[in-house]
């Protein structure tokens, strides 16, 4: 398994699960504000396993990993979650049916991308569009908008982060 193949696998199988996964973590952990950290932890665990061998059923694997993480967190801390284990069957996760998230993600991707961009703060949005859609350089963007290149770079950076959060759906509540 090459690194780039693994990266592609994450893009295809894992990132589209983010919204559902985030929801699961929030529902099953008392401190909802920790969800983003938990989410990240799940990714790390999935990565470490997938690096050895790609799971046959990505979605079931990701959610099992999430559940195991929550359980281990409970054991290693004094935190008592509202509900330790979610009802997997009820969530339709037991069987790896054709992954609905992915279908939805593929179909709605353009709409979600558009929404993601639309919701950026105006100046940040302009910078992201000029760079990503128009292919202008930082210097050109800076010139057109009367900004320093440094500012352009920082808008881009924020825009990249916001796009990922919005596109993969883990963003609800992440932004202040």
């Amino acid at each position: 398994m090459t690194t780039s193949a693994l990266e592609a696998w994450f893009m295809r199988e894992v990132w589209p699960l983010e919204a559902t996964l985030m929801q699961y973590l929030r529902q099953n952990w008392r401190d909802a504000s920790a969800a983003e950290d938990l989410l990240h932890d799940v990714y790390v665990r999935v990565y470490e396993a997938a690096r050895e061998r790609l799971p046959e059923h990505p979605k079931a694997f990701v959610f099992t990993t999430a559940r195991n993480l929550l359980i281990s967190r409970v054991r290693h801390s004094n935190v008592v979650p509202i509900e330790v284990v979610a009802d997997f069957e009820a969530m339709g996760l037991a069987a790896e049916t054709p992954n609905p998230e992915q279908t939805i993600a593929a179909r709605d991707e353009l709409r979600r991308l558009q929404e993601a961009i639309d919701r950026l703060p105006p100046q940040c949005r302009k910078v992201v569009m000029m760079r990503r859609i128009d292919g202008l350089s930082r210097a050109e963007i800076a010139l057109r908008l009367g900004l320093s290149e440094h500012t352009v770079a920082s808008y881009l950076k924020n825009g990249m982060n916001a796009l990922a959060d919005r596109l993969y759906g883990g963003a609800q509540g992440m932004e202040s």
Partner: protein
Amino acid sequence: MSAENLPDPPAARAIKDRAADWLERADRSGWSAEDETQLEQWLSESPAHRMAYWRVKSAWDRAQRLHVLRAPAGDAAKEERVPRFPPIFARTAAVLALLAAAGTATLSFTSGPHETSYATGVGGREVVALSDGSKIELNTNTSLRVRLSKHERSIILERGEAFFQVKHDASRPFTVLAGNRRVTDIGTKFFVRRYERRFEVALVEGSARLDAPDGTLAHPVVLSPGDVVKEKGRSFVIERKPETTLVNELGWRRGVIVFTHATLAEAAAEFNRYNTAKIRIADPKAARLTIGGTFEADNVDAFAHLVRNLLGVKVERHGDETVISE
């Protein structure tokens, strides 16, 4: 898995910030091999770094698909349904399309002095950024050659369809040659198509001139936005199309095909441009049924499914071929 024994990870948000920092740097033009090494080192420091970087990078990569869908800033609410060309495009200028005779496919690169070839297979799509700041987008099954010199920029479209966003430079004319037809930009963005015995040009914005280097056109034609020239054999037609129609014809730039009152025969032909698994309409009655809508260019199954449910036709699979009949 070892994560159980690790201390709490540094806050995910902080790692995401750093990942975006790296991505922003990697997106600059001056990115060097040394930078790449440093990034690789940061990524190897922790799987958490790698995850954050891959995630933000994948979203940024995906965002490239947006292209044509853009709405002008501050006007998003009004723009919902009808995709149109954003003001960003207006800066460069115009759009135009062409279509003509068949050629042979080459996947060669740099053939001859300062000439570069680009080609896409069936279902392929490619964006080429030229050193002069112009951009070319190749649609499915397309092949073209680019010659850049001090005094001219010349593109030879051998086959297929391409969309051109030209950085205008009066001292260095930008021309597209498709068979014996030539399009010269006058501050223009355009797309060009070339097939069998047909040739088609549509100008979406700006201005361009159409002529024939071999003198087979009596007068050069100056095109205005909305103008569509269609030529097949001896027939030569110029018509004016509304902007939305032209935008629909550029649907391929975002991976979709848009039909308005297309017959099944036309729709099948369009799908067959993008897919090796072909659709065949088995009887003339079915071929005349009409359909409209937006479809993913590479999803023949979804199309077949919808046609069956909507029009009540029979859909069968014979190996790679999808056969539609009454």
